[in-house]
């Protein structure tokens, strides 16, 4: 038999229900809209970040397949000349790039790329001149004007610049004059975005600007795929000592992998919000079904098929789901801008410097968001819809039969839930799960616990009644009684509430633990009194060289007991470029938090002075290296093995870094540069006064940024806070969805009781008692859900800290147990539950008993 459409009256049954329960429908709408909104905004942010990443690598690497590089000191430009004149017939282009900032360009870090305009054509598309002569005329300007730079028309427009505008570029703490010699006309929006954050100049200009006369950073090459091995061998034979030929891809691969993991992480966090939303929908729909059992029975008796009942319930939910999803899309676009800013901030802080702009037409994100919202609604509504369809015709189940049936399913469900939770927990603890399975197992624990919670409620309410009754009289017995007697209705509400609160706890515990870990860690690693680096350099990994004169003056500065130097630099390795941090602090072995080490800090440091290195936890995780392994680095003398003496905790970079003894670095790489210093001050010195004096005296030629220990900590902490801003933001939104969930669950529960409240009033409950009873009931559910959420929240936090962070950032965070997130969450649960009781209580108390009994 084929049935196509629902009878109009049946459609009305569904539609009217939504209309006559506007508050419930509205809350469900809000829940879905928020869930979808967050997911969409995060997706927009992720898509933007991924695109920006791809474009910026494309902009910098272009079509190059390989490059030649030679470590921190760079290549001699004669190498390029020699290769050019060797008759190899290979496209090759020299590059020297430099991070700069400019007050005329918003003071944001920009990449100044020095190129040879005549060698560029095959490599980077933005210089290709199909039909325009802009590039070629601009290229001419390179030679005519000293300090000439090119930038994109978009950037020029954004900052109100035009051809001929003067710029001040800050490079290595020095302000240098430059001029906009020409504008690059991007061919399409994609290349426009690729050019965002990029300045071009002739290579000689950049050599001059950065004080690296005659040096190149690398030579890009395009090697044909045919006969490639022979070509590589030929090239390698021509390279001078210390230069290596590397694949272009490897340079960005690791960063790409890491940012992908990070994006997966925030996607999953954003999905947590939607999971809470699913519980909210499930609760609302289940409720609407339970409430209408009688009507469905009657409809079935009248000849309505169970498929039609199914369609009514699912149809109602989907209607709200679709409208909610649409609103969510709008919200997502609105929130997208904020998310893009937060995500790009984090990526810049811990992964990679790049300019992220919102993708212009996030069609894909929107489609995904809409599907997600509808899928969530469908998943949440299908079980209650099926339940409704099962309603037996004519003889409807009596209420207490229904409750005893649901008590039986409750016991079964809680058993299944317990098994699921335990199995997932074991998987988390025992198996070394990857990011996505980790999240899967975490959701398993959450859902399992949600199934067990109502069972615990069933058991605990009678006990509570026994405690409360002697204290507050009959209401003390009535309220717990009511809660457990209507298990079919309170259970989903309870589960929804518990999940929501637990997620809230997990999130805030993660954020607070992260901060506490960082604070503790800084306590150990930042021991000196004064810190200095070139102004504008990265706070954790400064790579700009400090002028030797400044360092000399520092050594003999009155009041300074001991000065330490640090050299941060990228070096090539078979694993791609790695960050080195070489220092000469004899006590640095003590000033580390070890993740894994053999022997004491002093012993470790002794080994480092003898030629070993220590690597950060994120690097160890990423390269899968451990204690006792060797790490290979390319040195001017060729590849060299460094034994790993320890793995230390580090929260500054997900790429990770390698610490080694400065003297060893200098001996191996022949580079005398220093990029940061720190100093211990003689006891009794006024540190702030000395910092001010150093800042004034040492910065005469090169602008340095000198800070006291406390200032550096504060600055670092604000960077860390920024890193976690996106997680915090997601957590706040999830809390809000949770709050809406609680509100809607409690509201449905209490609104259904209007008739019962009428009877109670008729029997003689005072208005005050009606209020007390309602609030006692919602408060009890709130408090119990909140209490049960505490251990679950703890588990979620453990997973987020121990597993998810390790997989997405590379570092493990230790749980810093604080009572505040727990207390706060419990408060949120109870407050939301009480708040949700207010309106029904007010309505019940205001409505005359006669009316309440007549009409519900």
């Amino acid at each position, binding site marked *: 038999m084929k049935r196509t459409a629902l009878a109009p009256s049946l459609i009305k049954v569904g539609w009217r229900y939504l209309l006559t329960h506007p508050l419930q429908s509205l809350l469900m709408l809000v829940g879905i809209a928020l869930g979808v909104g967050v997911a969409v905004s995060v997706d927009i942010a992720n898509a933007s970040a991924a695109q920006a990443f791809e474009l910026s690598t494309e902009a910098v690497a272009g079509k190059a397949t390989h490059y030649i590089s030679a470590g921190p000191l760079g290549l001699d430009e004669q190498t390029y000349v020699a290769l050019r004149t060797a008759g190899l017939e290979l496209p090759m282009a020299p590059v020297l790039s430099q991070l700069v900032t400019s007050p005329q360009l918003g003071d944001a870090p920009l990449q100044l790329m020095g190129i040879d305009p005549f060698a560029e054509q095959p490599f980077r598309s933005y210089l290709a001149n199909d039909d325009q002569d802009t590039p070629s005329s601009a290229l001419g300007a390179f030679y005519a004007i000293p300090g000439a730079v090119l930038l994109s028309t978009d950037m020029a427009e954004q900052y109100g610049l035009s051809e001929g505008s003067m710029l001040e570029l800050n490079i290595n703490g020095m302000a240098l004059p430059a001029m906009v010699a020409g504008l690059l006309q991007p061919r399409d929006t994609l290349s426009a975005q690729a050019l965002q954050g990029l300045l071009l100049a002739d290579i000689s200009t950049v050599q001059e600007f950065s004080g690296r006369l005659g040096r190149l950073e690398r030579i890009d090459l395009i090697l044909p795929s045919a006969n490639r091995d022979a070509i590589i061998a030929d090239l390698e034979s021509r390279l001078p000592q210390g230069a290596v030929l590397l694949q272009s891809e490897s340079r960005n691969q690791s960063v790409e992998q890491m940012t992908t993991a990070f994006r997966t992480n925030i996607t999953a966090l954003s999905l947590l919000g939607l999971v809470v939303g699913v519980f909210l929908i499930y609760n609302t729909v289940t409720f609407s079904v339970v409430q209408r059992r009688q009507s469905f029975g009657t409809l079935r008796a009248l000849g309505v098929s169970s498929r039609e009942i199914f369609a009514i319930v699912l149809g109602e939910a989907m209607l709200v789901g679709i409208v909610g999803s649409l609103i969510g899309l709008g919200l997502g676009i609105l929130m997208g801008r904020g998310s893009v800013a937060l995500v790009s901030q984090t990526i810049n802080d811990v992964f990679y410097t790049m300019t992220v702009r919102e993708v212009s037409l996030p069609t894909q994100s929107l489609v995904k968001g809409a599907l997600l919202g509808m899928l969530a609604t469908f998943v949440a509504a299908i079980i209650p819809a099926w339940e409704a369809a099962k309603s037996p015709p004519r003889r409807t189940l*009596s*209420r*207490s*039969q229904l*409750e005893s049936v649901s008590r039986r399913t409750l016991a079964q469900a809680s058993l299944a839930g317990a098994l699921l939770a335990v199995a997932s927990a074991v998987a988390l603890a025992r198996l070394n799960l990857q990011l996505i399975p980790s999240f899967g197992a975490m959701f398993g624990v959450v859902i399992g616990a949600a199934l067990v919670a109502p069972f615990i409620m069933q058991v605990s309410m009678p006990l509570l009644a026994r405690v409360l*009754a002697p204290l507050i*009289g*009959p209401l003390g017995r*009535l309220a717990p*009684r*009511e809660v457990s*007697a*209507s298990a079919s209705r309170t259970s989903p509400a309870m589960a929804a509430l518990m999940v929501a609160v637990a997620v809230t706890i997990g999130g805030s515990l993660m954020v607070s633990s992260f901060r506490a870990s960082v604070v503790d860690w800084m306590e150990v690693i930042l021991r000196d009194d004064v810190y200095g680096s070139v102004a504008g350099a990265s706070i954790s990994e400064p790579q700009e060289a400090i002028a030797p004169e400044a360092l000399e003056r520092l050594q003999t500065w009155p009041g300074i007991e001991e000065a330490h130097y640090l050299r941060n630099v990228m070096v090539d390795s078979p694993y791609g470029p790695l960050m080195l941090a070489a220092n000469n602090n004899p006590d640095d072995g003590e000033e580390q938090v070890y993740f894994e080490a053999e022997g004491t800090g002093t012993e470790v440091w002794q080994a480092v002075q003898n030629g070993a290195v220590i690597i950060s936890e994120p690097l160890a995780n990423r390269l899968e290296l451990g204690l006792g392994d060797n790490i290979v680095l390319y040195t001017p003398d060729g590849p060299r093995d460094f034994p790993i003496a320890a793995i230390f905790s580090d929260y500054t970079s997900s790429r990770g870094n390698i610490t080694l003894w400065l003297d060893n670095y200098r001996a191996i790489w022949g580079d005398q540069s220093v990029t940061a210093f720190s100093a211990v001050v003689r006891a009794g010195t006024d540190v702030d006064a000395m910092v001010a004096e150093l800042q004034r005296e040492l910065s005469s030629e090169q602008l340095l940024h000198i800070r006291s220990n406390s200032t550096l900590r504060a600055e670092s902490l604000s960077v860390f806070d920024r890193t976690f801003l996106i997680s915090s933001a997601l957590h706040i939104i999830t809390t809000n969805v949770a709050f809406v969930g609680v509100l809607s669950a409690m509201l449905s529960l209490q609104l259904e009781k209007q008739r*019962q409240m009428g*009877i*109670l*009033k*008729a*029997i*003689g*409950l*005072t*208005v*005050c008692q009606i209020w007390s009873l309602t609030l006692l009931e919602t408060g009890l559910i709130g408090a119990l859900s909140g209490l049960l959420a505490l251990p679950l929240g703890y588990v979620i936090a453990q997973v987020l800290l121990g597993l998810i962070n390790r997989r997405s950032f590379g570092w493990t965070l230790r749980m810093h147990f604080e009572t505040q997130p727990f207390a706060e969450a419990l408060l949120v649960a109870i407050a939301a539950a009480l708040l949700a009781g207010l309106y029904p209580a007010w309505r019940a108390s205001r409505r*005359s*008993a*006669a*009316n309440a*009994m007549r009409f519900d």
Partner: protein
Amino acid sequence: MSALTALLRIHGLSKSYEEAGQRRPILRNVDLEIQPGEFIAVLGSSGSGKSTFLNLISGIDLADSGEIWLQGQNLVTMNEAERTLFRRNHIGFVFQFFNLLPTLTVLENVTLPAELRGTPLKQAQARATELLAQVGLAGREGSFPDRLSGGEQQRVAIARALSHDPLLVLADEPTGNLDEETGAHIMALLEQLTRQAGKNLIMATHNLENARLADRTLRMHEGKLVSEPARP
């Protein structure tokens, strides 16, 4: 206390409902006096206002004007809280549609009014058990209301109406949803229990058989309460 003093005195009681901007008077200037111990039946066709009348006397609905004096207090001038307390102490109600609390057991339903009045739990339960036995439901104390038949539910409702020892029992069509035989049985039970306890009973019904048990029969007609001549 003089036997001549009326237990309940109703004077000029009026009630109308507003629907779609239109006022529909239900009760117009109703007067009534009831002596202690009297059993009054109120007859009337469907929609004549019987339930409305009882609702007003119990204070679960509010009159537009008039006076309802009971125990020297005028219900009409009381506020909501006072009316509730008054009802809790003095009135027992048997509703037209049972109106038992579905989430409470039979015993709990019957115990509740006494408990609300402040009777210690043990005592209230003992009284409730006794009443349930009197209405023939001994052994069903732990059942939930929806497991009972209509007649059984109504017997629980009667027990509940008497559990807190009220002065006045109001019964709204107590047999309306029951078959004839069960109805007669319930009616007999209600009459017997109230008279035995010396309570007053006002019952709304459209069943002449039931009305015959009353001391006095009144009829609700076009918003007025008129005396029905005693039938042979």
